[in-house]
């Protein structure tokens, strides 16, 4: 694969936790082909798993008939992933830190923190009801 050529994949997949394994394998195939190390592939899989788990749980509240949209693009030294839903959205600025969650022994609330820790860039584009996106980037050295 010529690294300087854009290679763009789009996957539409039913919003079900039983599909998380399939999503992780799909991401692994692309990330490996692009040349990431096994460690980094694991991080990217985790970030995508977390974002998709959020769509399944929060955006679509376990409604199996909804679809998750996953876009993966490799280009130059950069892997970009956009995961989007048409759910109610949320305010990413209002999340607690993992330290706050842990000290409270509160359940959950760690997914987005993990995504931010393992990816090089993370941003949100929230349009409740129409299109909510989490965009994440990982650079290859």
């Amino acid at each position, binding site marked *: 694969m010529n690294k300087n050529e854009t290679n763009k994949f789009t996957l539409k997949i039913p919003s079900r936790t039983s599909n998380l394994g*399939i999503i992780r394998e799909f991401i692994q195939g692309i990330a490996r082909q692009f040349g990431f190390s096994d460690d980094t592939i694991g991080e990217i*899989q985790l970030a995508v798993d*977390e974002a998709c788990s959020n769509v399944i*749980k929060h955006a679509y509240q376990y409604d199996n008939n909804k679809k998750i949209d996953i876009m993966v693009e490799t280009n130059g030294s950069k892997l970009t992933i956009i995961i989007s839903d048409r759910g109610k959205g949320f305010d990413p600025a209002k999340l607690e830190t*993992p330290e706050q969650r*842990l000290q409270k022994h509160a359940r959950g609330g*760690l997914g987005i*923190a993990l995504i931010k*820790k393992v990816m090089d860039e993370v941003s949100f584009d929230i349009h409740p009801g129409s299109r909510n996106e989490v965009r994440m980037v990982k650079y290859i050295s």
Partner: protein
Amino acid sequence: MNGFEVVRKDLEDVSTLFLKGYLDAHTYPQFESALQKLMDERRFKIIVNFSDLSYISSAGLGVFMGFIETVRENAGDIKLCAMSPKVFKVFDLLGFPTIYDIVNDETQAHQKFTDGSRTN
């Protein structure tokens, strides 16, 4: 492939849960119910052995957060052991080692209960 299994072994008052496979938003309820069963039996000295766990996401981490208070209020603890570097990293990234004892193997985990020590 992306399956998950929990096997339990009791030794005196310590129960060990062996996790195998992939612990994610799909499979965490299985782990949760194994822990809930221990709560119901009032067994609060718990070791979780990760040696066969290939993958964990925050849904798996959340399970620990859901039980640790009850366990500790009952003079018990959850000791974590035998994590692969990949699984440890996820716990580490979120600061779990300051809250939980994470040791190399099951013998060390048992020792922690015998000594009655806790890292934090």
